Every structure is written in structure tokens, then in C-alpha cells.
């Protein structure tokens, strides 16, 4: 037991799942669960704040410094709210739906590779597993829509299912083209991989992120995936299932309190999961940027420390803001809170930036940074675009994305095989 | 401008530069049709009524305001009917009249024959009384309705 606990700390080749180290696997599951939940809370605040800034507003400001405690206040509110089950609802399914959605949302996360060893487990069919489980989430949405016995949720859930089915095709094809790229790794004998960890390793070995591979093919595939992932997570401009101005709140119209917050939790977890697929497949997962151009141990250290330095900067920004706060009696607790927050963030940043820690977990930090980039894009899109209509959404999915994805797939295959073909032609002659 | 329609036309004059025509309620339909088809008044601006409670017999004036895009002129057509009497609907001439006639029915209780959906529009369907009649006080309300549907004694 103890052995299992300490032994893994020095293990730098295998994920706990692979090493059959159940204690650490459990710890990782808890870390991932807690981490993603924390991320959801942060994201909740971040989205509101970001969206507000896009829209020349301030966003939450009153609860805690710069509204930082707003998610907690909201959580308390949601937990203490009356839990309403509509009269005509199918109670069992109504009860099951949010649980199901959360379950599928979090189960996908066990194969997400935060680092070469930082994943709960590494399956050899990792990406397939992720796609499969995440598409099960739609079942929960249909359950919610059906069980509510109300028109808006029903329409919302039907839209959702149709949308997921059609966008999964384009998404799958884009993924296949990335997987195909893994098979061009020198020394792998043309064998690709579905394992999330191996996909990143392939990018490391090939010395390029797949977004830049066979430019612009990798980029197009990435773009298709980037569009499909918004549709997959029901976010604007593809947020038809919850289209606020049409269907009130879509499939979760009849939900309130805790159950509703479960849907939100699942939505953000789903966003995290899908973004992590994109980061893994095209943005090099946990790999730091510029591995070839800025190589060498000095640069390695610099890049390892970089995320920690970012956190330190956030802390400094908090201090700066606290110093700039108007000196009013009413704002005193807020100012003090901001000082304390700045101190905590600063300490965290120093801890993360200290070289031993940084070396061990800088890959996690890079991964989270990349996912964070996607989160920013999510909010940015939401702030800018109108919503597609249902039939237009289908049109974009089937008539635009699918053909392009197919074309990219074929061209990728041809381009990738050209050296082999040339060699074969030479040999044949 | 003014057309001769036998004895049906009671009065045709201009007040402050605005033309109006008073016709008998029996020929209102024909006159409206003629105005649209022959004179090109293709836009029914408004349809409303006025309640002259002190007048004997024909208590209500129903007013049609017509406009012609081509001539850029407006004309008012008035007809007088008694309480409880009905007028032919103008919906088949101008679809606009649909809601306007419903509003007149709602507010004055004047029925329009042949209207596709003659029911109240602004007030609740089972409200009693027609508020724009002169005998309906400004503070008056259908207390029974308010009591049953809103569960309060008074909405004021």
C-alpha cells in the first residue's frame, strides 16, 4: 500500500492505470474530479466576467473582490432552492437525467492526458472511448426533455439529439485525419494510435503539432473540429437546444435548483473534455510550444516555469487592483479580500514556478493553459455571433463541414503517403 | 371625390381640411368596396367607433379612415347604427379590419357580420361590459371577473 503510494512518485513512464497502481488511480480520479469541478466554478465566474467585458459591462462585482465569490454564492443559492418536479413529469427519468449527464460528462475525463503520466489511465482506444462516452450524454438530454412533459424541453432535446448526431460525423472525420497523421511517425512502421498519450507522443516525435502538419491540412481539420466542438457542447452560436430566446431554456426549462446546476456542471465538464480532445490532437497536448526552435535545457526550464510566472502575474495584478481600490469604508472588506487573494495566488505561483515542482507538473499547466484558450474562444464566440437556425445548422454540418472533412482526410492520406509512394515507385523501377 | 349613391349618402363635407362622408349603414359595404376598387383607397388606416349616448336611435358612429397611396389623400367614412345592430364586416375588403373590428366589438359591443373570429381582443373573453361606452365609468370594472380570476377584490 505504502509502496504503491510512494513508488509512483518516481514513476515517469506510465499512468497509474497502466501501472495498475489503484491507489494512485483513485487519487487521480479524485484530483481530476475536484480539479474539473474547481475549474467549472472558476469558469462560471470567468465566463460571466469575460462576457461582461466583451459587452462593456462589469459583470459580478459585489460578492467578494471583483465578484470572485459569486459562484459560491450562486452554488449556495442553487442548493437551498426549492426543488421542483413538474406535476406531469416522469419522476424517475426526470431524476435520472441530470445524474446521467454529469456521469457521462465526468467519465470521459479519465483518459484525458494532462501529462505523459498524468492521466487516470491510458487506454489504447482512448479517443474512441472519449467520443463514445461523450455522445452518451445526449441521452441524458433527451431524457430530460422527455421527462419534463413540456413542449419547450421536448423541442430542445430533439434539436439536441439531431445536432449531436450530425456534428459527430464531421467531428469524427476530422479526428480520423489527425489519427492518420500519427501513423506517419518515423519508426512506428505506419501504425497509428488511438491512445491519447501516444497521439501526443507522436506529435513530439514528429516535431510538430498536428495543427501545423501538412499546412493547411492540419489546420483545416482543426478548424472543422473547432466548429464541431462548439456544436457538440451546445454553445453559442450553436446553442439551439437551450436557445434562450426561442425555447426559454431548452431541455432544462423545467429544472431548478440543484438539478439545474448539475446540467450546468455537466455542460462545463463537457466543454473541458471536448476542448482537451482538441488540445491533445492538434495543439500538442501537454507539450510546450516551440520545441525545435527554442530547444535546450535553459529554454526547457523557462517554459516549465512560465505558467507559474503567469500565476504570479495574476497575483501581482490582484495587488495592483487592491491598491487602486477607492478608499471607502464600504469597500474595505473587498480590498482586504483582494489583498489576501493576491497573496494566495502569489504563493501558489511561486510554488508552481519553483523548478522541482515545475519540472514535475509543468505539462499539466501547459495542458490547462491550452484548454483555457478554448474556453476564451467559447466565450468570445458567444459574445459575438447570432444563433443559427435549426435547418441551417444541419446544412452547415452536412453540406459544409462533412465534405470538407472528407476531402481533408483523403488529401491527408495522399500527402502522407507520398514519400512512401515515391519510394515504392523508385523501388519498382 | 364624393360619389353619388342615391339617398344613402347623408352628408359630405370638409372640416379643417379633412374630408369626410356620412353614409347609411345599409350601403356601407358597397361604398367601401367602391372606394377601394374605383377610387384606389387601398389602405384602411383605422376603424373605430364613437358612442353618442344622448342621441336617440342610432347611438353609434362607426368611423372608417381610408387612405390612398396613389392620391396621397385620406378620407373618413362614417355610418350610424343603433345599439345591438350589426354592420357587415370589412375584413374581406381589407384584412386590416380583422383586429380593428374586434377591438370595436370589445370596446363598444358593435357586432360585425361575417367576421371570421368575432371575439374580444384586449379584454378577457368573459369580461362583462364594453368599456368605451359612455355609461361605463372610468373606475368601473367587472368585479366578479376580477374576483374569480385574480382572487383579489379590486384591481385598482
Amino acid at each position: 500500500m505504502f509502496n504503491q503510494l510512494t513508488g509512483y512518485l518516481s514513476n515517469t513512464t506510465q499512468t497509474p492505470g497502466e501501472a495498475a497502481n489503484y491507489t494512485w488511480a483513485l487519487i487521480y480520479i479524485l484530483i481530476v474530479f475536484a480539479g474539473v469541478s474547481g475549474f467549472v466554478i472558476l469558469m462560471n465566474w470567468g465566463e460571466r466576467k469575460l462576457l461582461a467585458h466583451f459587452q462593456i459591462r462589469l459583470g459580478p462585482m459585489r460578492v467578494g473582490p471583483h465578484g470572485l465569490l459569486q459562484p459560491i454564492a450562486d452554488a449556495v443559492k442553487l442548493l437551498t432552492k426549492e426543488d421542483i418536479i413538474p406535476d406531469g413529469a416522469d419522476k424517475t427519468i426526470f431524476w435520472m437525467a441530470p445524474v446521467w449527464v454529469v456521469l457521462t460528462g465526468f467519465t470521459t475525463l479519465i483518459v484525458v492526458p494532462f501529462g505523459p503520466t498524468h492521466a487516470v489511465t491510458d487506454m489504447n482506444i482512448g479517443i474512441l472511448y472519449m467520443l463514445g462516452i461523450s455522445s452518451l450524454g445526449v441521452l441524458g438530454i433527451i431524457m430530460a426533455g422527455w421527462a419534463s412533459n413540456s413542449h419547450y424541453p421536448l423541442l430542445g432535446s430533439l434539436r439536441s439529439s439531431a445536432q449531436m448526431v450530425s456534428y459527430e460525423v464531421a467531428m469524427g472525420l476530422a479526428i480520423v485525419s489527425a489519427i492518420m497523421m500519427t501513423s506517419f511517425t518515423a519508426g512506428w512502421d505506419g501504425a497509428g494510435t488511438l491512445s491519447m498519450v501516444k497521439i501526443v507522443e507522436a506529435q513530439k516525435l514528429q516535431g510538430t503539432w498536428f495543427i501545423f502538419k501538412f499546412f493547411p491540412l492540419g489546420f483545416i481539420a482543426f478548424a472543422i473540429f473547432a466548429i464541431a466542438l462548439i456544436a457538440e457542447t451546445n454553445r453559442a452560436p450553436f446553442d439551439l437546444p437551450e436557445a434562450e430566446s426561442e425555447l426559454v431554456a431548452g431541455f432544462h426549462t423545467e429544472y431548478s435548483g440543484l438539478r439545474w446546476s448539475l446540467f450546468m456542471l455537466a455542460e462545463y465538464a463537457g466543454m473541458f473534455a471536448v476542448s482537451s480532445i482538441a488540445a491533445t490532437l492538434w495543439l500538442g497536448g501537454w507539450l510546450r510550444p516551440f520545441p525545435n526552435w527554442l530547444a535546450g535545457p535553459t529554454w526547457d526550464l523557462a517554459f516549465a516555469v512560465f505558467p507559474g510566472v503567469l500565476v504570479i502575474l495574476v497575483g501581482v495584478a490582484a495587488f495592483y487592483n487592491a491598491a487602486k481600490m477607492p478608499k471607502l469604508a464600504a469597500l474595505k472588506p473587498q480590498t482586504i479580500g483582494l489583498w489576501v487573494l493576491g497573496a494566495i495566488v502569489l504563493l501558489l505561483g511561486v510554488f508552481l514556478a519553483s523548478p522541482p515542482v515545475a519540472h514535475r507538473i509543468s505539462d499539466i499547466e501547459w495542458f490547462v493553459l491550452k484548454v483555457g484558450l478554448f474556453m476564451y474562444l467559447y466565450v468570445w464566440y458567444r459574445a459575438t455571433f447570432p444563433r443559427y437556425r435549426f435547418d441551417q445548422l444541419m446544412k452547415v454540418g452536412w453540406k459544409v463541414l462533412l465534405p470538407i472533412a472528407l476531402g481533408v482526410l483523403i488529401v491527408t492520406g495522399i500527402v502522407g503517403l507520398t514519400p512512401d509512394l515515391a519510394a515504392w515507385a523508385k523501388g519498382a523501377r | 371625390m364624393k360619389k353619388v349613391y342615391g339617398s344613402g349618402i347623408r352628408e359630405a363635407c370638409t372640416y379643417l381640411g379633412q374630408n369626410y362622408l356620412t353614409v347609411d349603414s345599409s350601403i356601407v359595404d358597397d361604398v367601401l368596396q367602391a372606394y377601394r376598387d374605383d377610387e384606389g383607397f387601398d389602405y384602411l388606416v383605422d376603424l373605430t367607433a364613437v358612442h353618442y349616448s344622448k342621441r336617440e336611435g342610432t347611438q353609434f358612429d362607426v368611423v372608417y379612415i381610408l387612405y390612398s397611396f396613389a392620391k396621397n389623400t385620406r378620407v373618413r367614412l362614417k355610418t350610424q347604427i343603433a345599439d345591438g345592430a350589426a354592420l357587415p364586416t370589412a375584413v374581406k375588403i381589407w384584412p386590416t379590419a380583422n383586429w380593428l373590428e374586434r377591438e370595436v366589438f370589445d370596446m363598444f359591443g358593435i357586432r360585425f357580420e361575417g367576421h371570421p373570429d368575432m371575439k374580444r381582443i384586449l379584454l378577457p373573453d368573459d369580461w362583462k361590459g364594453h368599456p368605451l361606452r359612455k355609461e361605463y365609468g372610468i373606475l368601473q370594472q367587472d368585479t366578479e371577473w376580477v374576483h374569480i380570476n385574480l382572487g383579489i377584490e379590486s384591481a385598482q
Partner: protein
Amino acid sequence: MKDTMLETNRDFYGEEWGEHGPTVLDASELILNMGPQHPSTHGVLRVILKLDGEKVLGTECVIGYLHRGVEKIGENRTYTQFAPYVDRMDYVAAVSNGLGYCQAVETLINVEAPPRAQYIRVILAELQRIASHQVWLGTHALDIGAMTPLFYTFRDREEILKVFEKYCGARLTTHAFRIGGCQYDTYEGFEKEVKKLCDFMEPKFGEYEELLTTNRIWVERTKGVGILNGDDCKALGVTGPVLRAAGVKWDLRKAQPYAAYSKMDFEIPTGENGDTYDRYMVRIKELHQSLRIVRQAVDTLPDGPIMAKVPKVLKPPVGEIYHSIEAPKGELGYFIVSDGSLQPYRMRIRPPSFVNLQALDKMVRGMLVADVVAVIGTLDIVLGEVDR
């Protein structure tokens, strides 16, 4: 009330809709109650949709949730006293309402407001048109899913409201004009401030357009949606930008000029197809035209009195009059019958929103649920005016 609704709409709902709601889920038709509490019915409009899947087979509007009996109030107030009430009909364009009312009563008592008052009226009414169109654009974009234009338009509208507040002391329900002219003269620096406002506005309109005009999602959502051609518009009595988008070049400011509009140089923007996109473009162009009018009016603002000679106790002669103006939403008419007393005998208001809303059914038949929302938005209705 619900049950009686069902009773009277038996043929609309179909028989299986019993007393307790839909017990049988009919696979072919779905009755969807949109409103009165719904995010995008612009107030308390209730639209009952008959759907086949998401396709709209028919609609029925239930209105009157905001009925306040403005016409009845009008019969019980003196002419002066009624003026603040009209502000509360179309509450996003209060100045236009007040302008129409004052003009109507002035016609009735045969008084003309002095030129300076006329110009001030034009300036404020056009600023109000801009503000109203901005509210429309923001909410319409929000209906279609673009959240941000709402905040940008409301920010810019705020500047107009600040001018209103400085001029007449209120932002929304302004009560800016009185019968016979204006109560207030311009404040110090009014001209400069309005000109600055115009310069501030122009680039902002460009921003709205950058966000929407060429955006492919916006174009797809609006082009070919809710088509209403010119003949339909005339038959349904639809006026305002909706009529102009259908290609009918008709604007009361040009057709029957009132206030100082006859001295202004401006164009009437028109559309071609009469779809939602054209209506959007017409209104955007109208924003620019309004700015043009405001600039001209400020430049040529004459000096002189702001109030005509109107008796303190207003007793118009016996008679009746109809006067209408081009409100931001269409033709806003006042039909006033006077019996020679202090109070109007009959005060009929012809609201543009009420008549325009009638066209909803024709516009959305065969469209999808999402289009209903877009069409309600594009009609630019204000429920305060629909229900009065």
C-alpha cells in the same frame, strides 16, 4: 381564464386538447404557448403556435395583458392633462407619441406652433427615432442570438436619453411638448451637444453593421424570413419600416409633412424583398437619415418664441379630426372628437404596433419556431402600444 380560452379556441386547438391539457401526445400537431412570459415576445405578448415538428402551421396572438384603457382615460382628462399619458403607450418612443398628440390637438384648435418649437420637435423626434431603432436593433439581435449588440445599442442610446433629460427633465416618459409648442426652450450648449452626439453616433452605427450586416449567420437567419410584399403590407395596413422594406416608398414625413419636416432634406430608404434582412437594412439606413435631419435642424434652428398663443383653459370647437405622424414604428394616428367641452369626447389612438402585429400570422406560416422569434422582433412591436 385558461379554460374559457380553450373553449373559444376549440377548433384551433383541436378536440383532443381536453380540460387538463394535452393528455394524448398527438404525433402530428403540437400546440406551443409562447408567452406571455417568454424571453423574446417583447413584453407580454402571447402567441399560440400550432406546430408540425418545428414548422409553424398557424398562430394566434392573445394580447391585452397590458391594457390600461388609455382611450378611456383620454375621455376623462382635459387636453393638457392627457399629454403625459400618451408617453406611456410606446414607451421606447415617448417623444414621438407626444409629438403626434400635440400636433393633433393643435390641428383641432387650429393653432400652429412657432417655427423654433417645430424645429426642436423635429430634433427630439428624430433623436427618439434613433433611440427607438437602437432598442429595436438590440432586442432583435438578442432574439436571433447575438447578445452583444444589445449592450452597445443601449450604451449609445444612453447618450440620447441624457440629452432628453437635460432638455425636459425625464429620460423615458419625457412629456417634452405641450399643445401649442414646447414647454422648455433649449438649454445652454444644446446645439453643440447634439452635434457632438451626431458625430459620436455615426461610427457606432458602423459597428452595429460590422457585427451583423455581413455576418453569415445573421444573413442566413434574416434573408427570406417573414416575407411581406408591398400589396400584402397595404392590405394589412402595415406601415413604417416594414412597409418601406417591401419597396413602397412611403413615409408620412414626406407624404404629408408635419412640424418642420417639409424644410428638411432627407431620403426614404426602401428595401426590395420585404424580408427581415431588408427591414434591418431599412432601419439601419433610417438611423443615418435621422442623423442627417438632426444635423440640418440644429444648423438651421431659428430663434423666436417656443409657444403659440393657446388659451390656458383649452376648449376646442365641436368637431373631429384625424392626425397622424410617422412614429418609429409606423403611422401613429390620433382621432379626436370634440364636443366643445374641456375633455375630448372620443380619443382614438391608431397604434402602429397593433396593426403591424396582425401581419405576424401571414409572415410566419410555414416557417420554423426560430423564425417566429425573428419576425416578432422585426415587426418592432411595443406591447404598451399594442394593448394601450
